[in-house]
């Protein structure tokens, strides 16, 4: 397959690591060469969390400036912060629901206007799949499935050569039994929320 760099961004506690892990495991099951990186430790305490999944035979576990083929972001401000790692040919999958950082809550800084930002993303990038993942997750029955919703949408873009069936098996194998059905529902909903499939980059 073509080499593909998928960058995940979110806020500590949103489940970005599990999302990237599921993608990586499913890729390995399908014999796609995979390498990943995660950040643990202090950053997870409410700070920005980044992980990366590199498919198709890349050795580096990192996505550098301008290198992301796909950005999957769990929070709109963090989508913007990740843009230096993207280029015009990047496809963006993003949650539109803000998580206000302390700097905003305390009045030291202003949160960017989300609609204006989405407009910027739609005008300047290859594609932008954006929705309120928290509202969708609540509709499914748990705010915790934001991560698998967005993962479903990543698959829905058609850019990752993964069978949804493989991902379903991975979810069954890795997620706690009582949360499996919720996560499978989130995967399906996420797939449907992709704003149309794209030809492989």
């Amino acid at each position: 397959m073509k080499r593909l760099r998928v960058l995940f961004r979110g806020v500590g506690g949103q489940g970005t690591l599990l999302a990237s892990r599921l993608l990586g495991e499913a890729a390995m099951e399908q014999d796609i060469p995979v390498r990943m990186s995660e950040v643990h430790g202090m950053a997870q305490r409410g700070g920005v969390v980044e992980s990366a999944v590199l498919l198709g035979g890349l050795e580096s576990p990192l996505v550098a400036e301008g290198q992301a083929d796909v950005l999957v972001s769990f929070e709109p401000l963090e989508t913007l912060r990740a843009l230096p790692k993207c280029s015009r040919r990047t496809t963006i999958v993003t949650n539109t629901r803000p998580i206000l950082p302390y700097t905003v809550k305390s009045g030291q800084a202003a949160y960017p206007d989300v609609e204006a930002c989405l407009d910027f993303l739609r005008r300047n990038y290859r594609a932008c799949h954006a929705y309120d993942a928290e509202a969708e997750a609540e509709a499914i029955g748990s705010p915790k499935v934001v991560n698998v919703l967005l993962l479903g949408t990543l698959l829905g873009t058609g850019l990752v050569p993964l069978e949804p069936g493989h991902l379903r098996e991975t979810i069954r194998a890795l997620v706690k039994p009582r949360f499996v059905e919720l996560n499978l529902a989130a995967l399906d909903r996420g797939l449907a929320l992709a704003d149309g499939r794209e030809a492989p980059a």
Partner: protein
Amino acid sequence: MHFLLGKPPGDRLLLMGNEAICRGALEAGVAVASAYPGTPSSEISNNLFALSQEAGNRLYFEFSVNEKVAMEVAAAAGAAGLRSLTCMKHVGLNVASDVLLTLAYVGTEGGMVIVTADDPAMHSSQNEQDNRLYARFANLPMLEPTTPQEAKDMTAAAFEISEALKLPVILRTTTRTSHMRGPVTLGPIPAEKRTRGAFQADYMRWIPVPLTAKIRHGILLEQIEKGRDLAEASPFNRIEGTGPLGILASGAAACYVADAIRELGAEDEVTFLRLGFTFPPARNLFRRLLAGTERVLVVEELEPFQEEALRLVAQEAGLATPILGKGTGHFTRLNEYSPAEVTRVIAELLGRDPAPPEQPDFSELPELPLRPPSLCPGCPHHATFTAARTALEELGLAERTIYPADIGCYTLAVLPPIQMSDYLLCMGSSIGTSAGFSVATDQNVVAFIGDSTFFHAGIPSLINAVHNRHRFCLVILDNSTTAMTGHQPHPGATLTPPGYDRAVVPIERVVRACGVDMVKRIDPYRTEEAVAAFKEAFTSGALSVVIAEAPCLLYKKKLAGRAKA
């Protein structure tokens, strides 16, 4: 069953570098392991602990009180002929360095592996020291994996090398290799292993007094030369491709180089020496690289460790091949590297000019608000800091108070809204530096230290403060776990994993035994009582200790969830 044992040999698991190290240790038949947790090494200790809880693994593991003790436990197991491992973060090796430099003299009988996990770019650390220098300092062999597969294979190999040389072997990772995930093909775990050793007393070997240590130093230098032969022949050092540009790289940087060569289609232009057995330097391989190329680029994060070793070989061999790297300004000694930066430097040397990625004009975007990490919602440290601050303000002391800080979640108190961290060096430094501030200034001194950190490095400095009549208030933030690194137990912790049956050493008894008379225990959520206790401590005119007791809510919830499931 632990996930590292979930598949048969030959199958693959998608493992983090740290997890792969644990699997490698199991495949090598490790019998005793010890650690003090620290990012990015913590997952090694967590998994070894979990594995030791399963009887079938016949593995003894302990969370030791600090890295020095952890290394001593593993060293003695090695002296008794068992295979042992200890792991720590880079600055943890500073704490254990007193052991390390003499352990190199006495050596080991059973294979002994010392894992140091470095943190270039300081994702979770106070400095980015390069622990490869410890290998050179102590004269111990060192391996550095670049992938999870190598992390497993090198760990297993390190035990063999250790036994062949009778020296401990350093396995050095960085954050990127510790937290990199990739497929790992499993090897077999031996059905039989030694779990009981026997120590053979021999003072000429094990007691480094001047007479014997002089001899042992000579033996160490002989053994490390034999290590050089192993490095020359090691499959972890290999040359890929042939071309006029030589590149030498190790660690995560080797991955970036490999991708860059492929991306630039430069397989026929580059001779790439990938180093995995990184100390002592494989001189013959270095010489081959220098002799067969027109110039050599060294790509390594942090210090010019291999670059200087290569320059030495060039001088010895009389080769004038230009050596490029940090000395020539091609790379920096700061931070971790980015794959894009490594590609750019190699492209430039090859005379390529790859088009930069097309970026839109970001000027229409607003300035982005920062999202610094913060104490978790509901963290009891909030309440403690608030109560201490209220007491200081009501006493009119807030303006002239210095807050020596320590290592843990509560270091985040440096950030708004708390801003009660003023000076920090290392584990335990809050107490020793409070002593210094109290003799050097007329300011009020209030220090904060966590429970695990207090046990790790706080006790001798507290005794020092009592003995030398230093005057300050020490606040011990007792949340009953080592929270920052992922909730490991410590000697005073009562919030422990299911089945954890080690003895509890109450902090208050330790503090009183150190000789402190003014000791207050508070529940930080009982605000009025807490503020009153702080006021009493702050105005006592003597050394005082306030122990703020409230469990880490995150961990308490996690343990409760585990009990239900």
